[in-house]
């Protein structure tokens, strides 16, 4: 068990170094691409550096995801309160309907209204990123046992104490899973932003598609995938740290692992 986990750590470190070198060292990238695409003459996209595109990509995703998570979470909490419960069926229906939209369509609809560039892309990613957070916030809170909420009320908790000390702690895992989904989807979708001039890793992918240069497409796609995998891993670490196995039933881990 211990040998296996240290092997995993070593693998992660190696992958991390390879990925870092690929992004930041032009010569390393060129070497790899030459092996993979021997027939291609132009291996390195020169107009914009890969680290710069990665930076643009991360700021697109970070900004839109933070806003989307805040909005989705707040709306989810609002429609599960007694004052907002009337809106619950409406919001649920709209959200399920909106999720069937492909992200490209959202972008296509957004740019005539919002124009070209960074901001409309953030707006489109924001709109699309709300849904998983909203859905999971609603489902997470709704799945808290009604008897437990009544027990908390019966002990004399105020409505905000019930929310902060009972509902949210018990729904946290599902809500974080929603944020995780939202961010991962946004990392992929953000590549489309390049079509309306938002920059990011999509730039090199689009350039590759236009010039029929597979090495360019590969460069952009692998980097975006690397970011998505790293983010996913980061979330799973976060979940392990915050939702430790001590609380048994909630985290789904073996509760007997807790001792002393």
């Amino acid at each position, binding site marked *: 068990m211990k040998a296996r986990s240290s092997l995993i750590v070593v693998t992660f470190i190696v992958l991390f170094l390879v990925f870092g070198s690929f992004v930041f060292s032009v010569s390393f990238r060129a070497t790899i691409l030459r092996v993979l695409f021997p027939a291609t003459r132009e291996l390195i996209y020169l107009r914009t550096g890969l680290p710069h595109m990665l930076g643009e990509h991360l700021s697109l995703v970070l900004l839109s995801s933070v806003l989307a998570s805040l909005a989705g979470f707040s709306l989810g909490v609002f429609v599960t309160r007694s004052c907002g419960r009337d809106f619950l069926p409406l919001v649920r229906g709209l959200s399920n309907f909106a999720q069937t939209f492909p992200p490209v369509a959202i972008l296509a609809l957004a740019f005539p209204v919002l124009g070209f560039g960074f901001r409309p892309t953030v707006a489109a990613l924001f709109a699309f990123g709300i849904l998983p957070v909203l859905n999971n916030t609603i489902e997470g809170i709704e799945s808290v046992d009604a008897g437990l909420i009544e*027990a908390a*009320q*019966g*002990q*004399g908790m105020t409505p905000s104490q019930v929310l902060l000390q009972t509902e949210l702690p*018990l729904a946290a895992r599902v809500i974080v899973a929603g944020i995780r989904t939202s961010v991962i989807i946004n990392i992929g979708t953000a590549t489309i932003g390049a079509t309306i001039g938002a920059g990011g890793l999509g730039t090199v992918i689009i350039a590759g598609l236009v010039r029929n240069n597979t090495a360019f497409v590969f460069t952009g796609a692998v980097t975006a995938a690397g970011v998505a995998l790293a983010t996913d891993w980061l979330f799973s670490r976060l979940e392990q740290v915050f939702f430790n196995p*001590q609380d048994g039933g909630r985290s789904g881990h073996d509760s007997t692992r*807790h001792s002393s």
Partner: protein
Amino acid sequence: MIEFDRVVKYYGTHRALDGVTFTVPDGCVTVLIGPSGCGKSTSLKLVNRLLEPDDGYVRVDGRPVKSFAVEELRRGIGYVIQSAGLLPHMTVQDNIGLVPRLLGRDKTWRRTRALDLLELIGLDPHSYARKYPSQLSGGEAQRVGVARALAANPPVLLMDEPFGAVDPLNRETLQNEFISLQRKLKKTVIFVTHDLDEAVRVADRIVLMQDGLVIQEAAPEELLGHPSNAFAREFVGTDRALKRLGRFSVSDYMSQDTSRVESEDHTSVPASATLREALSRILAVPSDQIPVRDAQNRILGSISLEAIRRAGYGGAST
């Protein structure tokens, strides 16, 4: 004292409580009993205002519950529910300290209180304080639920089928622990159950309900001895005379005379047992009396079939 005064409660168009009036005296256990849908749990939740009545009054010490700030009212009333309702993300210690925390008690006070209460309910404080509810058995969780209700030392306890989710063997243990706890603490308890045996065991008074109405409000011996109508008679069952014997203690009906019992008699009954147990044991032997022993297994006297019959006859005739 808690009073229900012509209380009416609707669920939609269904009249769940149809003018319910009864009183809960201080320092004793009042059991609300009846078939499901009779309104017993509804009545309980009107006391801590998890529900509000559509008409009539619920008063605690003469003061309508409506006049209290709802959270203040609830923090002053212990609340125990079926399957305990412990918060799964908090340790046992934090669950017990919940109401004191809401009342602003500091950490040290809460910890000391939690450890004291664990001791009181018979769980080892140091091994249980830091456990999570998922690591407890049903019976342990239920004990912790009682401890949580007692933490802020409220004068009133509401117990909604507190032992309903526990297996029969553990349920009896919990009932006995509750009875001895109550003897020490003398809380004003409203206890909801649908189990007549449980009611007879723990109650000082029983309020029998049916379809949102109080059918009979009486001491258990009285309810079993003189059920007031056909429903009450059916509810208490044809073995009500036997159940009633469960209310009497052997020590009150035994004779000091040990001349007719052999000390090597295999069948005997503890002085702390009920007449119902004594009867059951007498029926298993050819003799019409058996020795009564104390906790140290010494013979104190004897209990006879005749004595039991006389005790039972007191009210079992209808």
